[in-house]
């Protein structure tokens, strides 16, 4: 469905992405993990065609995004940015209905279809009854859910999420990723929480310094060795007693075995 291949991108003289690739098919949830500054957001932005890669190609449904109009891309692909905010006084409803922008022409009013999509999206994100609440009075988690609702009314085939569980408490984190899975879209989510990635993703792509260092199902990728390599953190990987998915617990360095730090990078 979406394939970003061999993406290279540099900004301000620094190489941010160095031949990174990610691809996702319909109904699959791919987790993009990696330390801060590893290029997760940049790779998502290149895959969404919001940033033009220096080299590499992005194919959406078999078509090169460079040859597509923005509107055509937006009808198929929704991108939920991290921490998006606005100075404009908007209600939840206004924010969510912005998702209909690529589907409507100039002078065309909101249709009954738009309003029913709005109602469904609000319900799925637990925001029913909040549609007239001001965006500025929402908590971080509610904003995140409103942004997901906006992506839903956009009716995309591909959903790109940058840290979607940021600002959410544990119940809402689980709820949101359950929701994302149930949509059965082609989804790529940049995630910080390795346990969430392990619990929900079909496939994990690990980025480090702009390169993909591992790709595969969570049990194959999320090993103590990889976590040590990529994050420089000691971890014990077990198996969740109910789901059978990997679970990761970290060992604080102060209690650790006195690792050498010299020459570490």
């Amino acid at each position, binding site marked *: 469905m979406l394939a970003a291949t061999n993406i290279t991108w540099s900004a301000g003289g620094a190489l941010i992405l160095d031949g990174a690739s990610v691809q996702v098919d319909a109904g699959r949830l791919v987790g993009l993990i990696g330390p801060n500054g590893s290029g997760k957001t940049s790779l998502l932005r290149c895959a969404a065609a919001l940033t033009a890669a220096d080299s590499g190609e992005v194919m959406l449904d078999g078509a090169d995004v460079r040859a597509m109009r923005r509107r055509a891309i937006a009808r198929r692909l929704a991108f939920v940015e991290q921490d998006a905010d*606005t100075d404009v006084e908007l209600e939840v409803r206004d924010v969510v209905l912005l998702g209909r*922008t690529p589907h409507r022409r100039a002078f065309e009013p909101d249709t009954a279809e738009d309003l029913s999509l709005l109602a469904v999206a609000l319900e799925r994100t637990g925001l029913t009854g909040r549609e007239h609440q001001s965006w500025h009075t929402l908590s971080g988690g509610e904003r995140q859910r409103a942004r997901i609702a906006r992506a839903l009314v956009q009716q995309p085939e591909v959903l790109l999420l940058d840290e979607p569980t940021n600002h959410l408490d544990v119940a809402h984190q689980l709820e949101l990723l359950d929701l994302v899975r149930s949509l059965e879209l082609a989804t790529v989510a940049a995630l910080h929480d390795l346990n969430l990635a392990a619990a929900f993703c079909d496939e994990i792509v690990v980025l480090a310094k702009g390169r993909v260092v591992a790709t595969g199902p969570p049990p194959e990728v999320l090993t103590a060795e990889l976590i040590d390599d990529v994050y420089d953190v000691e971890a014990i990987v077990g198996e969740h007693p109910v789901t059978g998915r990997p679970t990761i617990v970290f060992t604080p360095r102060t209690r650790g075995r006195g690792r050498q730090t010299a020459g570490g990078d």
Partner: protein
Amino acid sequence: MTRGRLRPWIPALVGLVLALGSIIVASAIGPSSVGPADVWAVVLNKLGLASHRDVSPIMQAIVWDLRMPRTVLAALVGAGLAVAGAVMQAVTRNPLADPYLLGLSSGAALGAVVVLVLGVAAGSLGVAGGAFIGALVAFGFVIAIAVSGRRLDPAVTVLAGVAVGTICAALTSLIVVVAANPFKTREVDYWLLGSLAGTTWGNDLVAAPVVVACVGVCIGCARSLNAMAFGDSDARALGVDTTRLRWILLVTCALMTGVLVSLSGAIGFVGLLLPHAARMIVGRDNRRLLPVSALAGAIFLVWADTVARTALQPREIPVGVVTALVGAPAFALLIRQRRRAP
């Protein structure tokens, strides 16, 4: 802040009725007494929709040849400036933006002064032509400074507008001082403050198609403009080509403002005040905000001009003085009443 949700067309309809009513009633006000009904009769006569024999030719001439062209132009200028202001505020994400932000009024003033005081091309261009060219040349300089690649950065555009505007204003003062002709200086002053005196139907015939077309383009872009609320990148993720949208809207507003300034002088405060007032009535959705801004601007300027030509009869106050005297306190009140910064 979001009244008018259920029946979004109501504010626009009320505005339209009030705007047309204002044109009729304001055309009845003046030194010689004419009733609104007489104005209505003259309009019907002239449009060939009915014939009222009881309207005297003199009254006909006063209403149709003197007052109506002026009130209609006031409505057109008010509508155009208010929409240009609302659009500039959205495009630059700056609540203080107004139609003159891109150096347009200072450029127009410089162009007008070059023709008026220096007498350059006075025969071929006229003061209005000079003003129009001045406005567009200033706009050209602002864009040349602000553009990088194909992109226009909103903040840089605002700063470039300030720079070009300052240069134009300085040159205008220099020319006026050097030329030092008291009569011309007075004429320049009037022009700088804005005045609708001496309007003919010919002016309306220039303004009307430009305002209708440009306001139409802006309203057509309203949905895309809404999508820019969360920033450019987010708007692009929603399928909006933000670079193209900015170009279309800036050029449209520059053209419209250039034409209006060349006809009426630089009337201040309409483009700043009315979009904020309209926002309080219909909220932030540009699809509703732009039409209502247009109508509010039309109504406001029709009445401001009526005050300008009647308050100190037989002398005229420049209409820009009235809009500033009424507009600035109203603006201050408006800001106080808002919970959040615009």
